[in-house]
């Protein structure tokens, strides 16, 4: 745990100049078993301190890989000099930020640090189960991991904070071959917010999920290629989460709006069907704690939800304090940094489409010829809203019933056009939090949603 060495440093903040000072530790524990062999057995602890100073519309930043009072003094001085350099050469005279409510915020979850043996032993138990119960695999991989952040923040105005954000996961990858000898793969992640010892006490809790994964892989190895073209599909909750994040979320990050994203011309316009409401949740959603709760950001802004689309109308952007001032919006705590050496960027927290009233079974029954797309390997989107997701698991729908499994494919479309085709929304939400969002820096994010019936372009062979 970081000791508070920064309190006295606030006395050195220049009056009237927005200043942030952040001490941070990122720890990572990782064990990778490939077909039973330990391929990686790694522990990492990276800590340090950074300062950021705002002056007439430009920023100076500096960091040191050292968490001491001397380092705090050094980075404050260097960040100030950098802000002065920028102001001298490229300052644009923008005004200071409107003040925020001050105070302190502490979120100190259990922050145990299990020995590496705990990760190795748990991964070995899972691997032994897969080996014993999943015949005809060409390979198997089990990853046990924790990546956690601890931040101690002092700001010239806004919330000072000391926040612990642990998360831990088990990933299971299974590979098999199609009858023609082509390899196929599926994976599933287990876990979420919390340290490894809290999330993983009993390997048998994972067995049902592994059995289901294996069953799907066996179906996939007998799978067929999707028929390319525009189709009516059901996107499962995980796919909706990917859509919420990649295809809509990024385009409404205010820095990307300023960079020319499609959302720049669509505020307060119809971008989706009336059934679609999309929110970037801070720490609570639909009466429950979010997968990765955020209470304050790295600019000292207390975190609140941001409604991005309300009943099909684009209603807001996610902002930093600087972009909020530009757009005349309220900053809601989206400015977050990954490492001590990173500056805060506008990032999503827990982004999800709201549930509707339809039953998944009815939605499938309503399609005569289409697809039910469940799992996504990865996704990318353009600032135009044009998106592409890999689909790693899905089924045909024929005559209102699920048919054969699909081999790997992709779907694509333009978000604000595709969302207008949504005509059914399921009443259940699925969340995912095991991945990283990539921007200038990685960042853990939660994403989720209900199943959606819509039209998308699917890639075939």
């Amino acid at each position, binding site marked *: 745990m970081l000791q508070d060495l920064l309190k006295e440093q606030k006395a050195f903040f220049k009056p009237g100049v927005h200043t942030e000072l952040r001490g941070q530790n990122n720890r990572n524990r990782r064990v990778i078993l490939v077909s039973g*062999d330990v391929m990686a057995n790694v522990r990492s602890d990276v800590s340090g301190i950074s300062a950021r100073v705002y002056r007439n519309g430009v*920023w100076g930043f500096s960091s040191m890989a050292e968490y001491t009072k001397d380092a705090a003094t050094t980075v404050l001085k260097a960040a100030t000099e950098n*802000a002065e350099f920028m102001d001298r050469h490229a300052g644009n005279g923008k005004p200071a930020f409107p003040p925020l409510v001050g105070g302190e915020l502490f979120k100190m979850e259990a922050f145990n640090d299990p020995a590496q043996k705990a990760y190795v032993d748990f991964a070995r138990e899972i691997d032994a189960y897969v080996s014993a119960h999943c015949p005809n695999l060409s390979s198997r991989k089990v990853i046990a991991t924790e990546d956690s952040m601890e931040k101690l923040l002092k700001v010239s105005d806004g919330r000072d904070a000391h926040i612990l954000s642990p998360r831990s996961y088990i990933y299971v990858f299974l590979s098999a071959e199609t009858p023609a000898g082509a390899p196929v793969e599926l994976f599933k992640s287990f876990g979420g917010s919390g340290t490894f010892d809290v999330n993983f006490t009993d390997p048998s809790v994972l067995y049902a999920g592994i059995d289901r994964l294996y069953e799907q892989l066996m179906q996939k190895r007998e799978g067929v290629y999707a028929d390319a073209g525009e189709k009516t599909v059901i996107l499962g909750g995980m796919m909706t989460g990917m859509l919420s994040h990649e295809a809509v979320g990024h385009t409404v990050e205010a820095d990307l709006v300023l960079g020319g994203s499609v959302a720049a011309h669509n505020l307060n316009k119809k971008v989706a069907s009336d059934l679609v409401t999309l929110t970037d949740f801070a720490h609570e959603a639909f009466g429950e704690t979010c997968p990765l709760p955020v209470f304050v950001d790295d600019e000292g802004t207390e975190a609140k939800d941001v409604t991005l689309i309300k009943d099909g109308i684009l209603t807001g952007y996610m902002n930093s304090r600087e972009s909020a001032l530009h757009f005349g919006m309220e900053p809601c705590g989206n400015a977050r940094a990954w490492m001590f050496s990173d500056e805060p960027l506008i990032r999503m927290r827990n982004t999800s489409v709201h549930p509707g009233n339809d039953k998944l079974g009815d939605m499938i029954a309503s399609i005569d010829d289409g697809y039910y797309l469940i799992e996504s390997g990865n996704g*990318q989107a353009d600032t135009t809203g044009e998106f592409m997701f890999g689909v790693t698991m899905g089924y045909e729908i024929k005559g209102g019933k699920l048919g054969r499994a699909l081999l790997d494919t992709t779907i694509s479309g333009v978000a604000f056009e595709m969302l207008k085709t949504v005509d059914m929304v399921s009443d259940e939400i699925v969340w995912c939090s095991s991945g990283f969002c990539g921007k200038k820096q990685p960042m853990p994010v939660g994403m989720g949603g209900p199943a959606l019936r819509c039209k998308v372009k699917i890639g075939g062979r």
Partner: protein
Amino acid sequence: MDKMNETAKMILAEAKKYGADYAQCTVSESEKKEFNVDGGQFSLMRTLFNRNIIITVLKEQRKGTVQINRFDEDAVKAAVADAIAASDSGMADPAWEFAQGPVEESYEEGMPKCDTDRLFMRTKELLETIREKHPKILIEQMITEHNAARTVFMSTKDVCYRTRSGSYSFELMYSAHEGEKSSSFYGSNVTLKTLDKPVIECALIERELTAVEQQLDPMQLEGKFVGPAILAPMALAEIVIETMMDNFVGDMGLIDGTSIWKDKLGQEVADPAFSLSFEPFSEDVVIGEHYTSEGYLTKNYDLIRNGKLMSFALSQYGANKTGGKRAGNQSGNMMIMSGKETLEQMIKEIEKGILVMRFSGGQPAPSGEFSGVAKNSFLIENGKIAGALSETMISGCVPEMLKQIRGISSDVMKDGNVRLPYVAFEGITISGK
């Protein structure tokens, strides 16, 4: 460097005290100066002082690795104890093997000292040149930086490398805009040793900016056809090289047995015109890799020569696991042999096809099959660029494509790390609405 040497020696001595059979460490210090442009405006200047230590120990063939970024004695000793504990908790694997000395080498590369004023000047000049020559381009983000690093690698097998390096890099993310019309975003990158000429003249930056400006009025392709695709250097790397490295020739695919090329060594896997090598010692590389993470000295190597698979991209661990041979380096600096025709001539010979600058696709399947969106792309008709395309998907199979190469350009992209031409492949499924 003295302090770093002492820290490295202390780590090895401490590991031996704990009974490690082998230990190695990388101790490094780095400094970064960086300018950021966001939404076309200067936004941020950063100065980062970083440190890093990576310790790997082997005890009874059980491996443990720890990374920290503190240099104080207590933290370093605790990290060694942590690495030993990680090793104790693991399982023995006879395949772990590291370089045997004696070897002691020092390298100095690039430009270790940053000229901050000149870096700012070149950044400003690039921004102003783009505004003037490419007025429709909006820079979403530009990051320009100088990275300097000093590193000591030391092992208990009498291996020691010391490096001092520095380089400048420019990364631009941009799109074209006119009223409410906009193109897809595109990224251009270059790594440079010196700042002796305008950055817009480096790599393919000028050509790429011009192409993106021509993508404001994309057309929708109707229907689907199978035809040739010219992959520009970055699309070539994303579709073909990544698929090959991740699935066919790297440690993972060969160790787990899913590589479809596992029995193809020495056999023809591509058209005879296709040669791919990894050359950290090429004059086109600003900062080359001199040793591997297992401590072995590197050398250039051919992965595919004249269509024949000459080597896998294995580490020593991967080689021991599979009965193969360690590759000459860690496969970072890819070089594809250029052809004789210009890009223009290649386009002239195509009746109907597509030129793909960027690919947005799912992770390639282990079989090499892929599908995804052809971004920043142009339709080719009757030997000419007929216009930019939107929402066009392409799909194919990398191992089949490699055997259906119809041309490799003489134009190459040299970005300080890689050297790649444009390559035209037959048999790509191209589908629109």
